[in-house]
């Protein structure tokens, strides 16, 4: 159906307005380091890194509906790539290497496990970070004889923040493109029904592995950027399975129906996590576990789901209180009913007769 000139004009104006608003938002976010305290900036870096991780996770898992628990594996690989190579090459070169390693790892894992069944992939991704952690511990103990590494780089928090922001813009752009492309549509068909996807001619393994690699590259780069944030890293810290699950829970809390849905989940969960860690350091693990369970049980559709339900409720026609005229109208309706007279003896005989002589079916 061809667009009329009027529609084209409206569409262009809308796109223009949206682009302007988003540009303004990014500009405000980019200016944040010059307005907040150190603590605020640290919190924002945390938020931004989880933002990239969660949206990157949603690129793969939101479309194909396969729960990937490999986030911490890629995150840790990125961190370690920087930590191990920073002494022999410039910082941006280490970032490039990190992306390359992450992509290669995603390719191997994806080709081996994604072509078979969803469950194999989920289980493999669950153990992947734990396995890499074990290998790293073994490597560090036997080859380098140290358990941790210091990452000293001239790359301060503001720089990390700006880079993460740029990465966040990029990941959103990729997600936006994905929702408007044949490829993204194909992925959603895979998520809905893989058999159908194969029948309509989508190259299912290729599509899955490709988007898995794209998502992994974002995660690895986030890890690489965050390496200098912590200064000192060891395998147990870099490959923490909690990161994978936190990302999933954030995405679920936010809701996967919209591209921006996960954003709603990140901020409350980070603030809650900070609060729990400072207020109840010993109970942190127990309370965080309970929070996870509450979200899975009571908010399976996430905050965007709640918003959508709320919007639906708002759009329903209002039921106004009926006021004084209501009872009057009811009374009038009652008064104007036809009067039911007692049916008398003739009526009683008629009722008996009906019972004694049942009507023949089909005859009147």
């Amino acid at each position, binding site marked *: 159906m061809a667009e009329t000139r009027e529609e084209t004009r409206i569409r262009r104006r809308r796109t223009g307005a949206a682009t302007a608003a988003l540009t303004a938002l990014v500009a405000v976010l980019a200016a944040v380091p010059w307005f907040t305290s150190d603590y605020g900036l640290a919190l924002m870096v945390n938020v931004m890194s989880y933002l990239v991780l969660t949206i990157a996770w949603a690129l793969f898992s939101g479309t194909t*509906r396969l*729960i990937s*628990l490999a986030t911490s594996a890629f995150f840790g690989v990125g961190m370690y790539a920087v930590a191990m190579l920073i002494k022999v090459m410039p910082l941006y070169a280490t970032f490039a290497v990190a992306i390359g390693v992450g992509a290669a790892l995603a390719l191997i894992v994806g080709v*081996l*496990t994604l072509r*078979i069944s*969803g*469950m*194999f992939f*989920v*289980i*493999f991704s*669950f*153990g*992947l970070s*734990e*396995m890499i952690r*074990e*290998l790293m*511990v*073994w490597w560090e*103990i*036997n080859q380098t004889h140290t358990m941790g590494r210091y990452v000293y780089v001239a790359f301060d928090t503001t720089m990390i923040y700006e880079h993460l922001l740029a990465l966040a813009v990029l990941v959103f752009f990729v997600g936006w493109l994905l929702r408007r492309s044949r490829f993204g549509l194909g992925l959603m068909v895979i998520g809905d029904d893989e058999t159908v996807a194969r029948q309509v001619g989508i190259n299912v393994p290729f599509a899955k592995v490709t988007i898995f690699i794209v998502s992994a590259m974002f995660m690895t780069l986030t890890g690489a950027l965050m390496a200098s944030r912590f200064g000192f890293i060891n395998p147990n810290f870099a490959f923490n*399975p909690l990161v994978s*699950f936190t990302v*999933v*829970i954030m995405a*679920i809390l936010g809701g996967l129906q919209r591209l921006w849905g996960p954003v709603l989940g990140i901020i409350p969960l980070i603030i809650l996590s900070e609060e729990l860690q400072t207020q109840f350091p*010993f*109970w*942190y*693990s*127990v*309370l*965080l*576990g*309970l*929070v*996870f*369970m509450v979200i*899975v*049980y009571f908010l*399976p559709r996430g905050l965007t789901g709640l918003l959508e339900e709320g919007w639906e409720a708002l759009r329903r026609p209002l039921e106004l209180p009926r006021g004084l005229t209501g009872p009057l109208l009811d009374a009038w309706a009652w008064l104007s009913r036809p009067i039911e007279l007692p049916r008398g003896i003739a009526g009683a005989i008629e009722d008996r007769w009906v019972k004694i002589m049942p009507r023949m079916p089909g005859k009147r």
Partner: protein
Amino acid sequence: MSAIEVILGGVILGGLYALVAIGFNLQFGMARIVNLAYGEFLMTAAFAAFWMFTLFSINPIAGMLFSVPVTFAANWLVYRFLMTPLVRRARTREQLEGETILATFGLLFVLRGGATLAFSANNRYYDYLGVPLHIFGFTFAANRVLALAMACVFGAAIWLVLNRTRFGAALRALAIDPVGAELVGIDVRGLSGFAFAGGGALVAVAGTLVSTFLTFNPAIGIEFTMKALVVVIMGGIGNMGGSLVAGLLLGIAEALCSYFVDSGLTLAVAYALFLIVLVVRPRGLFGTP
């Protein structure tokens, strides 16, 4: 230490893995729930055995008379109150697996955090039957041999129940096709709860056995969960014999690895085996391609 001793040591470890994996398979293959908190029950049972032994000097094997029924009941309650809502809500098997993974991960954190609070994160160890035992000229620790014997006893009991009783036939039907099972009059919900609780009871046995010869702390659970997952996938979901063979295979591979390379790489061995099976036999060791 000769190569044969290494392999026999692997068989002992493998018997334990098989027991852990069979319990996991009851939960995953029959009740269709991926229970990431599975290993935490192993850890809890190990601590129960430890405290009973150190405080009241109760023999760990006798202590199982207490810890196994309690774990059975606890797991039944978990199924009844935590898993049933998810089972009702899920439309497909994949959805149920995904949701149970997330919910039981929360449970994992609660249980591990609780154990750390209650028992501290220290490594624990107690000496029970740590005497050398000479069999056919080879030397083993008596507690490890006992662990293998107990694993054999429980494995055989499970096999008998599954293959020689009506009840076991119903359980196997449940593993193959839950909808079909319901159509022929099997109480799917009730039986799933029983299978889940039975798996939990088995992991309590395994936890008690583990505590007799390994040091443990509140964080050991997840490693056993991962190995159980790998073994169950390798042997085939719902296939108990497959779990047994894959468990033994994993035990032997681990023993060889720790003898020739490094003892810190056990999980890497498990995943290497997993990958080889995926490449060579993508439907599991005994699956039909």
